[in-house]
């Protein structure tokens, strides 16, 4: 309860709520597109840089098992999503695969919110978490799209183009590139820009607050579609993340991740991508209804994780870490 309250009163949760509220009262307000992009570029690049600097301190043994379980999650989560939707939800192949591409990938913002939250609970996560984030980003999308493309006999060429796009998209360039840059420059150089990029610093948190204000507006503008997607998807958007979150926390703990680290890995597994996945799905699986995958990932799962999921996964992690 305390944990939930702490999360709900954090600047980012409140800013997110404000954004939703603005949409509910039909405000025209939203951040200019370029500001939104600028903030996401800053947040992702800072994440990568810091992660790279930290990665320099990690040994192979620290990283090995966490990497394995992360890749495992990248393979399992799209499959569970796909089959739940096909078998239980009776969705079409395209719709099931399209949604699976979202839940098999990860939402960087949700990840950042989790990192910020566990740090505020002084449960410092491992320094190499951004590395895991980059590993979880694309496999799920590839697997889900492959299933969909094969089953609906799509031309493979467009699939290849799409995967190249995912791998060279903004998120990947900034995260992976930032990691390498951070790794290369080392502590001393990092010191000269830490005041700007430090993921614990006020600039990062301030930018994150503004970004979540906009995310609230974006999510809120999807609420109108909630009635279109039917009760099953509403439930799915809450239950699926909890299951994936629990699995992630559990595997993370097995792999030796700390209280904070396991929480963040669980949050990653629970989160659904809404940046990399939507265009990829739209182009590869035209029959998949965007209202389904956008509403579930953006209007249901994303708010749920930001407001309630993260503290829940933290509680789970506490239990598994004998808390």
């Amino acid at each position, binding site marked *: 309860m305390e944990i939930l309250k702490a999360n709900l009163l954090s600047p980012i949760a409140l800013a997110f709520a404000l954004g939703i509220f603005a949409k509910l009262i039909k405000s025209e307000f939203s951040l200019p597109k370029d500001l939104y992009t600028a903030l996401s570029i800053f947040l992702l690049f800072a994440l990568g840089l810091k992660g790279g600097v930290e990665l320099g301190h990690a040994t192979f043994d620290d990283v090995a098992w966490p990497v394995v379980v992360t890749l495992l999650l990248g393979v399992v989560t799209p499959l569970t999503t796909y089959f739940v939707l096909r078998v239980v939800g009776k969705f079409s192949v395209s719709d099931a695969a399209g949604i699976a591409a979202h839940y098999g990938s990860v939402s960087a913002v949700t990840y950042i919110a989790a990192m910020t939250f566990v740090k505020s609970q002084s449960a410092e996560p491992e320094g190499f978490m951004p590395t895991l984030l980059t590993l979880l980003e694309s496999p799920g999308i590839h697997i889900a799209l492959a299933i969909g493309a094969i089953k609906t006999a799509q031309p493979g060429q467009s699939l290849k183009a799409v995967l190249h796009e995912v791998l060279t998209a903004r998120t990947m360039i900034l995260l992976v590139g930032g990691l390498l840059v951070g790794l290369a420059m080392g502590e001393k150089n990092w010191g000269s820009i830490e005041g700007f990029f430090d993921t614990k610093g006020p600039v990062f948190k301030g930018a994150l607050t503004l970004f979540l204000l906009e995310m609230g507006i974006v999510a809120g503008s999807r609420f109108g579609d909630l009635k279109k997607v039917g009760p099953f998807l509403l439930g799915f958007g809450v239950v699926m993340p909890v299951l994936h979150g629990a699995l992630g926390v559990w595997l993370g703990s097995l792999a030796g991740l700390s209280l904070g680290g396991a929480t963040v890995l669980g949050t990653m597994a629970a989160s659904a991508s809404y940046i990399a996945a939507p265009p990829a799905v739209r182009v590869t699986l035209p029959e998949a209804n965007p*209202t389904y995958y956008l509403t579930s990932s953006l209007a249901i799962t994303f708010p749920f994780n930001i407001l309630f999921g993260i503290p829940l996964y933290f509680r789970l992690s506490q239990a598994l870490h004998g808390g």
Partner: protein
Amino acid sequence: MDTVTLKMVTLVAEPVLEEKLTSKLLELGAKGFTVTDARGRGSRGIRASEVPGESVRIEVVVSAKVSDAILEHVKQAFFPNYAVIAWVTTVDVVRGEKYV
């Protein structure tokens, strides 16, 4: 002023299709194209974008033959599942031979 009479095809589509559409245009014989960012509303308004209603507006000056090929392709490949509108006008183009 001597000009060549050609067709101008205008396509308004959801942004994710820009790359797909423009490369197809060149493939079908267009010598170039002009794209502007737009927003709009339509009968479906479905979009795989965070900002609903975003569109790209693609203009292409081509011969009547290429124009038909483009419309044919768009009709088959995009109308079924995508938010696309296509219209054609007749234009007089300076240095028009350059575009056929």
